[in-house]
């Protein structure tokens, strides 16, 4: 069997910038659309009196969305090529949907930002790029779409690229690429365009198949948050005591000296049991069970790390948060439930430092009311110490969700600064 990598990417955009057409085009040209799906959109296109088959209909949503003419939520789509399997987190791009963009961005390797060649860099482009940078998506891909409506002009493309680069200089993004496309006609999506010979870079599909994602995980700071302790209580495995979890960073090898937090007890890795049996080494994003030499007290919420490389242990934590709740804004001094790796704690909001204007990146220190879709910097104190890394160094040990204890809803996503 072939060895194919998994790449997750997020797209954001409004109804008219061609996002749905682009996704439809990727699915169609990579032959990920089945005949019955195609026939269905063919029928609908005809009924609506459209010219040709509208590929955008492939990503048409739920009845409740069509009734209101909006996209409510993140939709996940799948396609694959012989090289990679792709998961698209498709999110609406309007300001009201910042929370959806954040959700889609949280696990993405690549953020695909669409720009309409006729309009250039607009507010929504900036918002999406800012979210991609706050959420630390490793790769940013800017597709300049509808080139067919600008006569495939290099001048138009160059100007937009230049504008975007000037704006992105203020952002924390590591890897930015640009591709001129026409999703409608398929130029530079899967097949190379013969109308833009001035462009020598890759097609969108070539980029997606080849962008280097193997180092997107943190392979340096070794962390295993414990989900559960496996104790079979059977005669055959009488003394078996395994610590189960998904590797959040670095790597564990048999013989490694490790420390359990919060107890601080040391031990040594004696076995690593993975889904296919024993293995010598474990790294992200593998789910494994570790067995240790000594019988030390470890339970859910604890973390196994290396002796000489430990996370911050503390109760006072600075966070960048995105607020999700439409009914209630963030309560200063309010108490909330909080989840971090496999820990469940409570926290109190100690301070709201500032609110971020996600169109200009300016910090508002006057109006600090954090409402739905707002991004802001806060300080919290937790009931128990958390074992954190900064979100910049580790997206798993650096992220939290905040939960309203009355409604049980997830009301905010937080990134450790």
């Amino acid at each position, binding site marked *: *069997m072939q*060895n*194919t*990598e*998994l790449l997750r990417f997020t797209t954001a955009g409004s109804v008219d910038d061609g996002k749905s057409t682009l996704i439809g085009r990727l699915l169609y040209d990579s032959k990920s659309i*089945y005949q*019955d*799906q195609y026939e269905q959109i063919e029928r609908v296109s005809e009924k609506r009196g459209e010219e040709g088959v509208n590929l955008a209909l492939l990503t048409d*949503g*739920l*009845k*409740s969305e069509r009734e209101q003419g909006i996209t*409510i*939520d993140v*939709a*996940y*789509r*799948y396609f*694959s090529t012989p090289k990679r*399997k792709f*998961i698209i987190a498709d999110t609406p791009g309007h300001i009201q949907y910042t929370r*959806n963009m*954040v*959700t889609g961005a*949280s*696990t993405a390797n690549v953020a695909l930002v669409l720009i309409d060649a006729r309009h250039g860099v607009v507010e929504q482009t900036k918002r999406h790029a800012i979210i991609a940078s706050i959420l630390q998506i490793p790769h940013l891909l800017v597709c300049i779409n509808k080139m067919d409506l600008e006569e495939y002009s290099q001048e138009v493309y160059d100007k937009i690229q230049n504008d975007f680069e000037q704006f992105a200089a203020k952002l924390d993004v590591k890897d930015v690429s640009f591709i001129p496309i026409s999703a409608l006609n398929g130029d530079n999506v899967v097949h190379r365009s013969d109308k833009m010979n001035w462009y020598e870079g890759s097609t969108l599909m070539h980029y997606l198949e080849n962008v280097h994602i*193997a180092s997107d995980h943190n*392979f340096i700071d070794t962390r295993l948050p414990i*989900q*559960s302790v*496996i104790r*079979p209580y*059977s005669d*055959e*495995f009488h003394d*078996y005591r395994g610590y*189960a979890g*998904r590797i959040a960073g670095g*790597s564990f090898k048999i013989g490694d000296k490790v420390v359990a937090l919060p107890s601080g007890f040391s031990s040594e890795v004696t076995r690593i049991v993975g*889904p296919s049996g024993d293995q010598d*080494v474990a790294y*992200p*994003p*593998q*789910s494994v*069970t570790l067995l240790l030499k000594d019988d030390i007290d470890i339970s859910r919420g604890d973390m196994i790390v290396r002796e000489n490389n430990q996370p911050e242990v503390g109760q006072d934590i600075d966070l960048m948060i995105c607020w*999700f709740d439409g009914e209630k804004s963030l309560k200063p001094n309010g108490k909330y*439930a909080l*989840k*971090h790796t*496999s820990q469940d704690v409570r926290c109190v909001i100690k301070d709201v430092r500032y609110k971020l204007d996600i169109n200009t990146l300016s910090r508002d220190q006057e109006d600090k009311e954090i409402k739905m879709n707002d991004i802001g910097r806060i300080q919290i104190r937790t009931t128990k110490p958390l074992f954190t890394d900064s979100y910049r160094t580790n*997206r798993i040990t650096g*992220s*939290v*969700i905040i*939960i309203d204890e009355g409604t*049980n*809803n*997830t009301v905010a*996503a937080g990134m450790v600064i």
Partner: protein
Amino acid sequence: MNYQIDHLRELESESIFIMREVAAQFENPVLMFSGGKDSILMVYLAHKAFYPAKIPFSLLHVDTGHNFPETLKYRDELVERFGAKLVIGSVQEAIDNGLVTEEKGFNASRNGLQTSALLEALEKGKYDAALGGARRDEEKARAKERFFSHRDEFGQWDPKNQRPELWNLFNGRKNMGEHFRIFPISNWTELDVWQYLALEDIPLPSLYFAHERKVFKRDGTLLADCEYIQKRPNEEVFTQMVRCRTIGDMTCTGVWESNATTVEDIIQEIATTRMTERGGRTDDKRSETSMEDRKKLGYF
């Protein structure tokens, strides 16, 4: 050192992670077992997640009474192999108790009645989380489903009020009487499932492989000839090499013309096929939004 895993191993680890979260966050989870390949995959993943301990969930089979006999045989063997506990929710019982009324006529199916039997079984067993093998690539309503899907005290799904899911932090908090549906294999596609079943050499019910069967054609779909479906006078029965792509109730599961007799043949067939797997499900064809409508009421 090459610290890279392929997509099947990454999906496997993701699903195991979710199952371990379920075991830790809920008091009484249950795994919904239909006898189809997705729920078989779920049982194998659950086994790996907790090995060498036993699977900490019971298996719940909502029995329409219209099963392919092969499904029941396979189910009982699987339960025995993993020493799992089997719970059966019976649609026949729900009919007998007057909870639901059986559909009549040519298109009669017990598929819709499963929802009531399922909700009844969940309530009776006091389960607070039900793990299912639904995948997001199956259908557009499922494309928006969460891993942890919150259901109110009536078991209903509200697509407008789903909790955002970020990173790998899953919020399973709930009030009394509410429960969660959990979909650990959300990110797998049909092809992923088959590739994994082949990779792991997992035995499957014979129905998935091409075999000779008496069938008849209705609305472009081949259905198995059986006592549970009333045929129209012009519907002729003939014998054909077929296999199932999904396994459900006999009344609504279409069979496909196929000569695929091994898992490798099936992978080849799917890689080149031109129809979605639910294309043969007459329950989805009832209307354009039938899955969305059924999900809101509490269907799988």
